[in-house]
């Protein structure tokens, strides 16, 4: 999903992180939504560590939202 120049990307598992890496650097910011309740915070960080450490040119936010995504994105709609 795109909100203006922001990319909002859902990650359900490691395969999605590979897809995320394939996106071109055209977005001002990236919001990564973790919506798999099985993941602990540790799991999330370990899954995305390499990605955040190698993409230091835009704002990246990782959200662990547990199903209340609507509350996050009211501002963008």
């Amino acid at each position, binding site marked *: 999903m795109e909100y203006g120049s922001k990319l909002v990307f859902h990650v359900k598992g490691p395969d999605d992180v590979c897809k995320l890496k394939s996106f071109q650097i055209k977005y*001002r*910011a990236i*919001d990564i939504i*973790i919506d798999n309740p099985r993941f*602990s*915070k*540790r799991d*999330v*960080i*370990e899954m*995305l*560590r390499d990605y*955040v*450490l190698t*993409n*230091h*040119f*835009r*704002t*990246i*936010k*990782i*959200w*662990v*939202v547990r199903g*209340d995504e609507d*509350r*996050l994105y009211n501002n963008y709609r």
Partner: protein
Amino acid sequence: MKIDFIITTDRSMMTNHHGYEFLGFMTTSPPIGIPESVWNWISMPRPKVDEYGRPVEAPYGLRKIEASLQDAGYDAYVIDPDYIDRYIDSSKAILIGHHDYFALGPPSSEWWIITGREPVNSKSFRRFMNSKAMVKARENGLKFIIGGPAAWQWLWRPELIDLWKIDTIIDGEAEKVIIDIADRILNNEPIPLYIYVGVDNVPSIDEIPIIKHASVNGLVEIMRGCPRKCRFCSVMLRPLRYIPIEKIIKEIEVNLAYGVNGAILHSEDVFLYGADGVIPRPEPILKLHKEVMERVDSIAWSHVSLAAIKYSEEKYRLVSKVMDIIYDKQDYIGVEVGIETGSRKLAKKIMPAKAAPYNPDLWPDIVIDAFRIMSENNIIPASTLIVGLPGEDEEDIIETIELVERLREYPSLIVPMYFVPMGYFKDRSWYLKEKIEGPLRELGEICLKHDLYWAEKILTKYYIKTSLKNPSSYILKILLRLLLRMYRTIISVKTEAHEEIHVYA
């Protein structure tokens, strides 16, 4: 006092090191030769606090976050860690900053490798996170927001994010993004687990707030970012901004109002303040020092680059002119500098602009010239080397050894830092397995001898001047002198034994 946001850190950070900033480096090591309690008394004494537990001096980064939140209308204060229990029941969140949470950064990681023992800074932080007040804060459901220059370290300690119930890690300049986080916490909205602050979210000059209360030892920043873009340095990722002199002076006046009469000018390169790229300009540097010295009793610099020192002096006699301004009130100035390597090959590869405007092929000679200029002007450098860089071979280390030997005649400290690939942190005991042998060991020994030779002279002649205003200065001077003599004796005995083994091998 109503506080929604407690801004704090552990004791190794919430201290003014008796007014001697350089003693802060002792927090990056385990205690050597004396009990930990004495080591901690020297390096991290409790600061003065007011009736609400607010420290008179606090780390500059925490002061910036406090100022951002207060300017936005939030009840946010820096509180000493010994006093946060007063506010746990009524606060919404605890915001924590640190230079080195887990002793993974330089020089802590290096001391860990050498001694095999955990430095006191990470022990202090763990004590703080397990303190009664923090346990209660977790039970009460307060949010925990982590930031500061060592925020990246949590990526390598993710199990502690779950254990200590950390809610958000902010990696980067947080003055802008913290407002949204605070707003969300008060409105009980979701907050992100992790934020990397990209260039679109770093504050502009106008958005960088002026601190409201004093910073530790009067530290004020004069610029952010660095144009040299060395490959090993995270500062290169930040846009370059020069803080206007008026704003710097306002912060110095805040410090003066709290009785902090010195200033530490913080910059990646003080002689690039107001520069044209990497070319220093005399006017802004002279104006800055005149304005600052009219107000303070003493001054220090955080960092300068060796190329800027050489260029400034040879082109404009600028170093001498600046020191003429400073000499009115003090007889020397201390500063950190990065030598990093004596290898021309590595200089070209990892830090091609560090020598600019000179050719990186000339790097060792630039270092020598800059050290000579600093020595002639009573500037005492504490300098770093980086060893173990990718692509480094024995020849590179030997060139670095040769450079350090050429620096012997100049009053200075030289500390080799070990470049640690982050992947090592997957294995917690990496630091116990590291072996320092061959030329690397030789380099370490040469640096240690250099430092022990100069440290006592620097300490007694320049650094710790005893004064009745600061009674602990007498005890500190005696203790540190004894420590240095003890280290020198141990090192000479060990080195002689090492040399004997070589002779008879």
